């Protein structure tokens, strides 16, 4: 078991499992966001539940933050190790001949998503934490939708969100399907699973984009 922690395969599996966990989170996040474009009350109700439920706040939220931090820290560690594995670079390297752009540039799409997460925390998570645990403001179960609309007032901010979701799609396009291979799943069901993962990587970010545009124009 000792060797497992530092082995290349264990790291690969850890990246895959943390990525799969984040994929599930994305689905849950999108589902709640999606309600905002057709029912203000449903969105407020779900947001109030997520914002006040102790299990979500004190168990799932820390687990999620750990998952995000673990995924990108491990991603950086692997990137550095991988770059060191080829000290002298090729004068001519035709990477596009045998692998997709998405698969070769996960670090860059990941960095854009990470930068977006910083902005997203600044926009939503930090004000929410200040509201609840610094100001100890009284809970208003109807405040969430108004706050959400306020964040999407700016066309620049909305544009940045849209661009970030495009990079999220690029990251998921390789990452989600590739996680099956990493955990050892490669059999007759792989073709179907890969198609599902590719569809997910387009549909969910596109859904987030539609929500962002809808909220911007609703305002």
């Amino acid at each position: 078991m000792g060797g497992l922690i530092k082995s290349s395969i264990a790291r690969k599996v850890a990246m895959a499992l943390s990525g799969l966990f984040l994929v599930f989170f994305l689905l849950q996040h999108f589902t709640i966001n999606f309600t905002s474009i057709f029912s203000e009350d449903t969105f407020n109700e779900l947001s109030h539940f997520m914002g006040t439920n102790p299990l979500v706040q004190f168990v799932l939220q820390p687990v999620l933050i750990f998952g995000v931090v673990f995924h990108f820290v491990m991603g950086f560690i692997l990137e550095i190790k991988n770059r060191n594995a080829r000290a002298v670079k090729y004068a001519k390297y035709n990477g596009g001949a045998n692998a997709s752009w998405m698969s070769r540039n996960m670090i860059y799409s990941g960095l854009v998503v990470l930068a977006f997460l910083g902005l997203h925390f600044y926009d939503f998570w930090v004000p929410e934490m200040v509201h609840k645990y610094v100001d100890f403001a009284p809970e208003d179960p109807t405040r969430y939708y108004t706050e959400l609309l306020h964040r999407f007032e700016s066309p620049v901010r909305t544009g940045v969100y849209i661009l970030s979701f495009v990079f999220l799609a690029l990251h998921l396009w390789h990452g989600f399907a590739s996680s099956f291979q990493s955990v050892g799943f490669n059999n007759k069901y792989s073709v179907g699973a890969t198609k599902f993962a590719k569809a997910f990587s387009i549909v969910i970010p596109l859904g987030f984009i539609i929500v962002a545009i809808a909220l911007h124009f609703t305002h």
Partner: protein
Amino acid sequence: MNLTLKIWRQKDATSKGAIVDYQVKGIEGDMSFLEMLDVLNEQLITKGEEPVVFDHDCREGICGACSLQINGEPHGPDRLVTTCQLHMRKFNDGDTIYIEPFRAKAFPVVKDLMIDRSAFDRIQHAGGYISVNTSGNTIDANAIPVNKDDADESFEAATCIGCGACVAACKNASAMLFTSAKVSQFALLPQGQVEATDRVLAMVNQMDEEGFGNCTNTGACEIECPKGISLENIARMNREYLSASLKG
């Protein structure tokens, strides 16, 4: 056809190398890539210059000795062939061709285009074998029934010639396709079960110690492999490794 060659020249393992330009004339489409280099070397020797050093042996695509990163791809632009089986008809008159050694920290350059691939040997030594009693009581391998699908997959994995194209193609210089092929060819057969747990742990451990990079599933190795070794082998190795680690 006349070609411009941009070839990596490096005096020895410790010297700093560089790309050097050469003009080569009178190359015919039916020549193999290595024969084209032979023509260049004849020209260099005639001029009193040092010929370009490169690995080669059988020139029939089965030994795994030849390597070369050609225009940014291991074994060049053709598929399912080694450099010795790559024909010059794949190129056009006036082309510029980059020729570099397979690059990886674990594959140090010996001279020019020749590299040291003994890291692969050490991975194989770590566990790529089965224990068979050969003291006169050897059991006929055909006496043990093997599922046809497993036998086919094992045979396909065993066609790996250990050329290192997978490492050269991988943006991370990962050796997982090679190692997984060597693990799979035994893991699929009953004869390989005795050492199955120790084998995968030892071979993966050796692979990591050699300084190869981590697999990120780009699939470049499978595309560039001259023997078409499948990524399924890597998934199998991942399963075998996790299972072996949990068994301890």
